């Protein structure tokens, strides 16, 4: 009698674990298939260029505006704390390091997943629902090569660039608030920032982070779209899964990457 709920619970955990492992296996196989079909997407670069426009250029507004406001808020809040310790001239360092190492890749990744990742999933899912992918197959054109691979590479190329722009606009926003509004010395703001931000450790690591996030978001987006149930509800579920899975993956990967990249850096 007592064992029944326990065994029921164990069965549920087992089923859930198996389902997760199966899905991970499918995703890995799908990733390898996309890589195998990437030759065409890179040879016919105009296909990828078109996707860079849709996922990158069309995401510029939300990324730039968000970057500007995040930088301005960061400067206001940072000044409040730094001023207590008489370190308000370090505002440039704090803002730049926060943006380049963390907020740039993470926030632009979350925005990219919501804006471009969901669009990728919905578009591929709707193409499946309206039999456009089947039609392509019947015309002897592989949808993995013609539809999926260009979108995947378009996302991977555009996301790190968006992340860099986010950080740049953030720094500019902090400059507007810190120097122009609050009145911190411009020379101290830029000079301290230049002295403290290391290109290899901070900028390159931030870029690597955004590239890893780009790979994760693009893979999740095209996988969910390609494997969506061909119904209105199926596409809606797939789009939601893309945003939720991408966001959680970004946050988890950020922690792991931060541990490896910046461990002990503070003591230098």
């Amino acid at each position, binding site marked *: 009698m007592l064992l029944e709920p326990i065994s029921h619970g164990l069965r549920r955990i087992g089923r859930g674990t198996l389902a997760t492992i199966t899905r991970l296996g499918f995703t890995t196989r799908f990733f390898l298939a996309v890589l195998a079909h990437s030759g065409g997407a890179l040879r016919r670069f105009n296909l990828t260029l078109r996707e860079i426009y849709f996922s990158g250029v069309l995401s510029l507004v939300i990324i730039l505006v968000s970057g500007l406001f995040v930088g301005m808020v960061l400067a206001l809040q940072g000044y409040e704390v730094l001023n207590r310790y008489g370190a308000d001239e370090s505002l440039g360092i704090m803002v730049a390091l926060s943006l380049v190492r963390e907020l740039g890749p993470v926030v632009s990744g979350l925005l990219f997943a919501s804006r471009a990742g969901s669009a990728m999933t919905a578009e591929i899912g709707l193409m499946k629902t*309206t*039999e*456009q992918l*089947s*039609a392509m*197959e*019947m*015309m*002897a*054109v*592989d949808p993995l090569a*013609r539809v999926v691979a260009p979108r995947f590479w378009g996302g991977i190329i555009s996301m790190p660039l968006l992340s860099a722009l986010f950080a740049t606009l953030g720094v500019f926003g902090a400059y507007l608030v810190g120097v122009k509004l609050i009145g911190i010395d411009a020379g101290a703001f830029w000079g301290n920032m230049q002295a403290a931000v290391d290109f290899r450790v901070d900028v390159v690591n931030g870029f690597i982070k955004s590239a890893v996030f780009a790979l994760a978001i693009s893979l999740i987006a095209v996988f969910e779209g390609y494997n969506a149930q061909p119904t209105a509800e199926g596409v809606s579920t797939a789009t939601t899964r893309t945003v939720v899975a991408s966001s959680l993956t970004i946050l988890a990967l950020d922690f792991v990457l931060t541990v490896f990249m910046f461990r002990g850096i503070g003591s230098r």
Partner: protein
Amino acid sequence: MPDTYNAVVPTCPTEIAVSLRGVVFGYDRRRPVLKGVDMDIPRGKVVAIMGGSGCGKTTILRLVGGQLRPQAGHVVVAGREVPKLTRDELFALRRRIGMLFQFGALFTDMSVFENVAFPLRENTDVPEELIRDLVLMKLNAVGLRGTARLRPSELSGGMARRVALARAIALDPMLMMYDEPFAGLDPISLGVVGQLIRKLNDALGITSVVVTHDIYESLKIVDYIYFISDGKVIAQGTPEEVRVSSDAYVRQFVDGAPDGPVPFHYPASGLAEDFVRVA
């Protein structure tokens, strides 16, 4: 013809474009959709496959096009056993097959012209000037040359179906497959699409398979009809034979009777049992 095919289906003559022998298929192994379908589609003919919704008509087209693999039996197209083809061989075969999907399946991010040019650009090295001429010729054949610059969203259902037809014949296929080409069309568009299927088949010397449940339009344009029910071919014949058939299923289909071999009610427990039962 491959040895494997000759060994299993030794009587398949060259005038048969598509042959299905003992085809079994199910999306779920416990519930087979097709339970041993035998069918021959002669070259140069327009053949209809008819049956109620969900009886497996579209599944047959997907098996012929190699998008699905049968769990048992043989699917032979132009003398090649489709499930045994390599990926490259299958793609080579598909270049010789045109398929019209139920709602056209036009690429919504491309114009009408680009849609029809798509198979030519993807599968041939034809120069762009020639592609332009070919596309306009194909669009002219379906009476829609004037729509070349429009987007699919600007077309009516019937026009979209005709543009999709122009795209399907872009590579001059030897076999055309139509999946519910009459679904949701007004009477004029329905007549236009029906006549196009017949005329293109005769003018291009191709073979056509039409999956439909529109009995009246089909009787006007096809040479032969297969009826599918419960996963098997249960009746077949020429339009004349179908019109005078005494087979109960064919009669129900031709007369549009709500009850018959295909019951009106989905299987359920007894009426009294459901209504008298106290909650």
